[in-house]
């Protein structure tokens, strides 16, 4: 009985802010009362019409999509190198990569970027590419972890040897065996990357230029205005992140290799 009540209490604690946000986003007036009065859709209409939110929404999508693409293009060869590495040095390097986001807060990375890229030699601070580069660094470990774990689970090396003995060339092995076998973990890894990138605040807040601020940064400013407007803007972010994680869970299909991000 007790575990059940603890679970229920925890879920209520978890859901309460979300429920309040949703209620607030549809509420008319919310001043010094427990619940807002009246029902309205005007906050969503206002968010949708707000040029800085529209721009931020677009920026977030571009940054997340590009981060995913780069993680895939760099991450797959990198995961492969880590998986095939026999040298303990490369394996140690891989461990560092995995733990990077835990050991290194995004704030530290942002300060580093500001120091390096505000110089006259590399004056790139504020460009969207720099923002994307930071997101890649922050998200890559999650992608690598998902894919490398799946490579081990599948015994990918033996699958490749089998394919080779059956007459398959290196390219054929890659497209016939490696990519299809890893499709679940690659997809789930990418969706984790997308969800992280969409929600990323610490780093983006410091490094993003004014014209390519991402959604969470603009969202913070909304809290200085009307409560309903802030709630609606937050619910939109929530839906965006939720879509990514549900899609991720479905793609992973309960397989190992899907890792829930640690933050």
């Amino acid at each position, binding site marked *: 009985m007790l575990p059940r009540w603890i679970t229920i209490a925890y879920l209520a604690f978890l859901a309460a802010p979300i429920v309040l946000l949703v209620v607030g986003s549809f509420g008319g007036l919310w001043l010094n009362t427990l619940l807002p009065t009246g029902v309205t859709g005007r906050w969503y209409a206002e968010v949708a019409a707000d040029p800085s939110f529209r721009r931020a929404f677009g920026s977030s999508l571009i940054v997340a999509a590009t981060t995913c693409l780069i993680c895939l293009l760099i991450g797959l060869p990198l995961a492969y190198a880590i998986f095939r590495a026999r040298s303990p040095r490369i394996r140690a390097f891989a461990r560092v990569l995995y733990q990077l986001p835990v050991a290194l807060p995004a704030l530290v990375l942002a300060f580093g970027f500001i120091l390096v890229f505000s110089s006259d030699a590399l004056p790139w601070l504020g460009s969207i590419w720099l923002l994307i580069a930071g997101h890649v660094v922050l998200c890559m470990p999650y992608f690598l972890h998902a894919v490398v774990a799946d490579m081990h689970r599948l015994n990918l090396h033996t699958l490749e*040897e*089998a394919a080779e003995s059956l007459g398959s060339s290196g390219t054929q092995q890659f497209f*016939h065996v490696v990519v299809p076998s890893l499709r679940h973990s690659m997809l789930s890894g990418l969706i984790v990357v997308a969800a992280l990138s969409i929600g990323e605040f610490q780093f983006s807040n410091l490094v993003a230029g004014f014209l390519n601020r991402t959604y969470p940064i603009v969202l913070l400013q909304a809290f200085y205005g009307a409560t309903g407007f802030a709630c609606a803007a937050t619910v939109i972010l929530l839906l965006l992140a939720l879509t990514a994680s549900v899609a991720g869970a479905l793609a992973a299909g309960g397989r190992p290799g899907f890792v829930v991000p640690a933050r």
Partner: protein
Amino acid sequence: MTAAVRLQNIDYHYPDSGGGVADIDLTIAAGEMLVCIGPSGCGKSTLLKLLAGFLRPDQGRIYLGGDDVTARTTRERGCGVVFQSYALFPTMSARDNVAYPLRVRNIALSARRKRAEAMLDLVGLADFADRLPAQLSGGQQQRVALARALVFEPKALLLDEPLSALDAATRLSMREEIRRIQQLRNIATLLITHDQDEALSLGDRVAVMKDGRLQQVATPEQLYDAPVDGFVASFVGRANLLAAVVVEPNAVDTPIGRLIVPAHGRPPGTRLELLIRPERIVIEMAHPSGSPNVFDVQVVRDAFYGATRQVEVAVGAGSLHLETTKRSAIERVRIPPEAVQFLSSPDSRSP
């Protein structure tokens, strides 16, 4: 007898560890099943990897069907390999797995499906063609792997511990299945195992390996009846191995007592190792008058296996393993001189 497979004077050492194989000379005739057996780490899987082309020998030549393939890649060699883990492609159906070698050989879709289905039929899985590997049992996956390794008519079939991941009952039926299909396709086959029953019952010849070297290559009968040393004797079948010293032209001293056996001209003082197979020891009811080599024994362990009993008895300062079909109590045994084989003693052999 033409050699379909020939390993000539092969040496290989793993770069990062001490392991490897040395001085390997081995041939497999067309249609022959050669079983390679040895304890883990003896290099038997290395042998398979060298033949398949996953590893390149440091020294020596490898021939397949008369061609020197030493410099060829795995892909060019075209050996059919069955892996211990089966290594079926998880996203392909059984049919697509079996058809894969034909797909990379650019055989038309309809033709390769037909051949794949014929192969699946041969291994008894015609009804499972559309299943994914994860939807098949271990034995069925093994059959698919076998079909896939044979469908492109390879020059040799290589099986790496194919039965070790199966449960005991499936293992027996798969053993017969592998033999049946191998004989049907008449293909030169190398099977790696650590299971002596598998080796003796499957192999046309058996190669026993130890520490990267071939100890003995012979038919199962020769291997059992005339092992070259104690290692082979104990690895193939059960064996009583006794350290012995020649004391007279026709007597040796052993931990179980003095045995009357012809020493075949070995001078007194010669140390050697005796092999006595458990089923050759005779259980005596009465005291046979005048017979040599009769010993009083005490039963230490007695295990009943249905048709036979495996009994361990204490004799003098040593012990013996017996195998018998008799159900009676055991008090006395006789060791017929013809049951005693002389092996050279490990410590008397020159290094």
